[in-house]
């Protein structure tokens, strides 16, 4: 196709060149118009546009089998299912115990299980008095304390991967077909709620502060109020540290720190924060597992000490 412009007019180097792949650029496809009168109407929403024609149903190559993999692809989802089941069953059992979650005057340290902290219901404190409590909460205080951390982990990008693969089998492994006839991803209720992860992130920061206070309190000696360290202290300190690392390595955190910025040179502080969270974010999976295991272990430890199975060994 030759242009009829006069030679004096400057032409673009692409003038006369057909669109790539020989396809004429015809504009975004409009919905078919049923009525002549509708001719002038211009689509204004994406829904009015007809889907881009993608040829579906082509014959595929390779055999019709679930997978051709012969390596142990099932090991990792199986381990995920096993570990998550153990932790979830244990945590559920533990929050319904409503006892032995607090080592108070009877022991030489003040320890509290991370599953029951913050202790804001009246029935949590038992004999300890003072401060502000929620008095109408009658069932286990652990259930209240677990909503936010539970929601934070349930909507975490890493745990999502873990349970989609392990429990929902969507997909169970790479290049292993999922067993579902339909798939809508995270576009529908309830999975669309995963988009609220950043709110859980912010709320969980409050919990991190509370659990850090718990860890600091665990340095307190009973009676004379001196300072000392026991194994329980270390467990709570490690737990609080890992919780902070877990939050700091979160994808929502990385985004809010600086990921949403396009021009880093104009936002040096946010760039620094983004640079700090990025290497942590790369280890989010490892931190997530370590922190989950330690939360469960800390509860178990406090529970054993509180129920008198052994006494918390003092280090110095």
């Amino acid at each position, binding site marked *: 196709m030759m242009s009829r412009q006069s030679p004096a007019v400057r032409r673009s180097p692409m003038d006369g060149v057909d*669109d*790539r*792949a020989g*396809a004429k650029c*015809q504009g*975004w*496809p409009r919905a078919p118009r049923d009525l002549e009168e509708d001719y002038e109407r211009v689509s204004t*929403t994406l829904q009015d*546009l007809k*889907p*881009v*024609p*993608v*040829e*579906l*149903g*082509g*014959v*595929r*190559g*390779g*055999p019709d089998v679930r*997978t*051709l*993999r*012969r*390596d142990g692809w099932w090991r990792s989802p199986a381990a995920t299912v096993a570990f998550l089941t153990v932790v979830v069953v244990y945590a559920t059992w533990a929050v319904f115990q409503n006892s032995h979650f607090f080592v108070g005057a009877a022991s030489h340290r003040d320890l509290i299980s991370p599953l029951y902290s913050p202790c804001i219901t009246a029935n949590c404190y038992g004999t300890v008095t003072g401060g502000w409590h929620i008095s109408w909460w009658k069932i286990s205080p652990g259930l209240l304390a677990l909503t936010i951390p539970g929601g934070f982990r349930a909507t975490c*990008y890493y745990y*999502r*991967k873990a349970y*989609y*693969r392990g429990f929902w089998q*969507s*997909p169970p492994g*790479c*290049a292993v*077909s999922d067993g*579902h006839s*339909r*798939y*809508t*991803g*995270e*576009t529908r209720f309830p*999975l*669309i709620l995963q*988009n609220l*992860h*950043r709110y859980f992130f912010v709320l969980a920061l409050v919990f991190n502060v509370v659990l850090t206070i718990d860890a600091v309190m665990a340095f307190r000696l009973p009676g004379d109020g001196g300072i000392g360290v026991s194994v329980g202290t270390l467990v709570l300190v490690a737990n609080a540290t890992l919780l902070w690392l877990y939050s700091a390595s979160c*994808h*929502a955190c*990385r*985004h809010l720190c600086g*990921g*949403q910025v*396009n*021009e880093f*040179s104009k936002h040096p502080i946010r*760039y620094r924060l983004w640079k700090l969270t990025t290497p942590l974010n*790369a280890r989010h999976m490892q931190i997530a597992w370590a922190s989950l295991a330690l939360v469960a272990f800390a509860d178990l430890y406090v529970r054993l000490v509180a129920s008198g199975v052994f006494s918390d060994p003092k280090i110095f």
Partner: protein
Amino acid sequence: MADVTMRVWRGDEDGGTFTEYVMPAVEGEVVLDVIHRIQAGPAPDLACRWNCKAGKCGSCSAEINGLPKLMCMTRMDVLPEGEPVVVAPMRTFPIIRDLVTDVAFNYTMARQVPPFKPREPEADGTYRMQQIDIERGQEFRKCIECFMCQDVCHVIRDHEENKASYAGPRMFIRFMELESHPLDTDDRRELLRERMGLGMCNITKCCTEVCPEHIKITDNAIIPLKERVVDASYDPVAWLGRKILRRTKRSALEAALDAPGQHTPTRQEQPTRPVVSATDHS
């Protein structure tokens, strides 16, 4: 050295099966070398795509022992010894013949990405960027378009119907490169949510696992894009902030209209499309 058994899928649209070729093992070879020796010997009509033999052209993608891999970068000595090496075509795309698939789907999707739309140049007619502004996108420029991430993605691998509205991981890294570009002025977030299927991805990371360029597709492109879509559509606080600051957002339609090839011709509309004739393997 011992022999290697190659179990290669042979066939076309009318069906196919695995054919075994027993070839002498040669030290230091990659899978593509053995495929070439099969072509040079027992099966001269074996079809495969390749170009650079250096892991840079992205032509030789296949599924080796069930996992998407570049044939030219998969050494024979890393595969389990004493077992047949199974080589099959990419599963997600229509077969043309043997190990060659029709990857047109990916180009269809690529044409719908609204291109770079830079802001006005500075007074002297140029642009200035700093390295820190641009380095996030540089990771994505390493893509060799082998389409193995698209192949392994279960959203379309196991659910053909999703292809109509799913750009796929390769296109998501392109979107992220553009969206995070310091000079770009376009807003593709609504388009990503509505039409490009970003919400279909459930971040199970198979794309990242198979990428031969080790691009962190999920962590550095898909999740950041999901967070950006949350900013635009699911976050009431961010929405309120926009209302107060009176920032407007381009509609998905406006963004979509920027794409160069919004209408992709179907096979019927493209009579000149070369047809690969079926070959008789008997």
